[in-house]
């Protein structure tokens, strides 16, 4: 399953870091963050609960980039 989220982030490199952090989160199969459109596209593992996984993704992104925001 794929979902798209609106995000807020200041720099291109920070967006890349968010992407890496999200990819490493359990339950996330793949993720792309577009700094230009301020969108995060997440592909979830089969059977994963997007809401719960996104909480972890959010926490992990916050860890690497304090200034970021994901509108869940």
């Amino acid at each position, binding site marked *: 399953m794929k979902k*798209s989220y609106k995000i807020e982030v200041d*720099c291109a490199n920070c967006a*890349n*870091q968010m992407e890496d952090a999200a990819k490493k989160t359990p339950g996330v199969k793949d993720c*792309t963050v*577009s700094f*230009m*459109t301020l*969108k995060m596209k997440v592909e979830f593992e089969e059977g994963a609960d997007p809401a719960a996984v996104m909480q972890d993704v959010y926490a992990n992104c916050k860890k690497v980039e*304090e200034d970021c925001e994901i509108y869940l």
Partner: protein
Amino acid sequence: MNKKQKRLLIRILVAAALFVPLYLISEGIVETSVPRIAVFLFFLIPYLLVGHDILRKACNGIRNRQVFDENFLMTVATIGAIALGEYGEGVAVMLLYQVGELFQSYAVGKSRQNITELMDIRPDYANIEVDGQLERVDPDEVEVGSIIVVQPGEKVPLDGVVVEGSSVLNTSALTGESKPVEVGVDEDVLSGSVNMTGVLRVRTTTEFEESTASKILDLVENAASRKSKSENFISKFAKYYTPIVCYAALALAVVPPLFVLLTGAGMARYASAGALWGDWALRACTFLVISCPCAVVISIPLSFFAGLGGASNQGILIKGSNYLETLSQVKVVAFDKTGTITKGNFVVTAVHRSPIDEKKLLEYAALAECHSAHPISRSLQAAYGRHLDQSRVSEVQEISGHGVTAKVDGVPVAIGNEKLMGLIGVEFAECHHAGTLLHVAVNGVYSGHIVISDELKEHSAQAVAALRRAGVEKAVMLTGDTENVAKAVADAVGLTEYRAGLLPADKVRCVEELLEGCGAKRRLAFVGDGINDAPVLSRADVGIAMGALGSDAAIEAADVVLMDDDPLKIAKAIRISKKCLGIVKQNIAFALGIKFLCLILAAFGIANMWIAIIADVGVMILAVLNATRCLFVKNL
């Protein structure tokens, strides 16, 4: 400017107001009795004011074991400079760095806004009539088959069919074509176009999710997430580059002074061992400032995004930065014929050897065929162009596989192929034109023939020439049509190569053969109208679908979607991609070139901190400005 940017601006201004007089005074009073510690504390105020968030981010990075980023570079460099007593330089670097950050965030926000405006096709509401009153509702809530009202000046919110009213639509946001389109009852309207003159009542045929406007927006938004090789290269590059320069700076701070101390060579230039270490440490700090990778990291995705935005404004939807990149390397283009080079509708292209007036001949032919709904009959009717009075026609007889005989105004008319002429015993003339021939006999006398063929698109020949100019080395037409027709079309548009008589599966094989001939660096694009050539579209390096407005299969299968069916757009797409890639390369070469030059100057102690930070921020600003040029592709 948003709130964050405004806050940063205020911080920069206040810090600069404090810093500038402080710097001027401190330069003048170096030798006075003001204690160093007081000067240091004074400088600390603007430094912390402008740079506290950078320091905090650097600390966070260290805590998360993501040490090496630009925050870290700047923190180490400025703290280093301040520790070495270069207070002014340390604060200035932080200040200018933040100016750069502010500019970058402003520029990116601005172009993001520009691009969204270019693609401003999202309808905000739909008008539904309830008890004679118009009510605004979310387009999402309108069910298929509802009647919506579109007033002049409003966007058509959903795809549908006009049931009442007529108007002129501006479809430029969808197709890039600025010529308005007239619509009337029973005609299709597409969401995203703007109603200009009259009130329209439209019966919707899609839900909002499935409407043209949503699909286009979805496509464009997804495009930016398919990253190009250059973008991937840069994000990988940044990952290794920053740690490398940090270690290089460390080496610069330690190795040369050690060398001097151990060998004693050049020691005479320094007053003491402390001065020696200080000098090299400062060089290392300068080195760090220069090495900040932001210019490249920001300008590459910005270039691609602006390119995608500019292209979509021209009615060229490119599904990802990667395709934009591939498009610039296209050297071989394979065309489908029908619907791509030709219009795909049959029209009368010539009337030959007619002893009577051509108009009269067409009138006879159209009337004789007026009962038929065959595309060929319709093309005759269209060529005649006036109302057909069926009462003038009698004794219509259709002879299958031959043609039609009938009496028009009491005059016997026979119209059909050679076989019909043979059947009624009339001598006919051969024709050198490619296309379907209709021989006409009036009153038992041969009266010439009408040539019916698929019409070339207006710009096909220009398009082929434009492709050549855009660097395409080989253009091939693939068609299922006969050799005869294929040759005629190819000659007319200036294509030297064509393959005729191909079944859809043969087309895939042809494209595969062409791909083999391409090699690694040259790319192949296939252009089709998306009707039964989806496999070929997906097999080519870049599949380009034309006139795809409203055709789901084509939008799915293609990598590049041309919203209208003008073949000139193919060359335009290639030119846009070339411009964009050119700018990307300029930026990489320019930014890295300046950086490496300054790094070397810094290592030899020629460039000081001022030069370093001006080079860093300056390069970034120029690279960002250059990147936004990708947006301007209208006159390309």
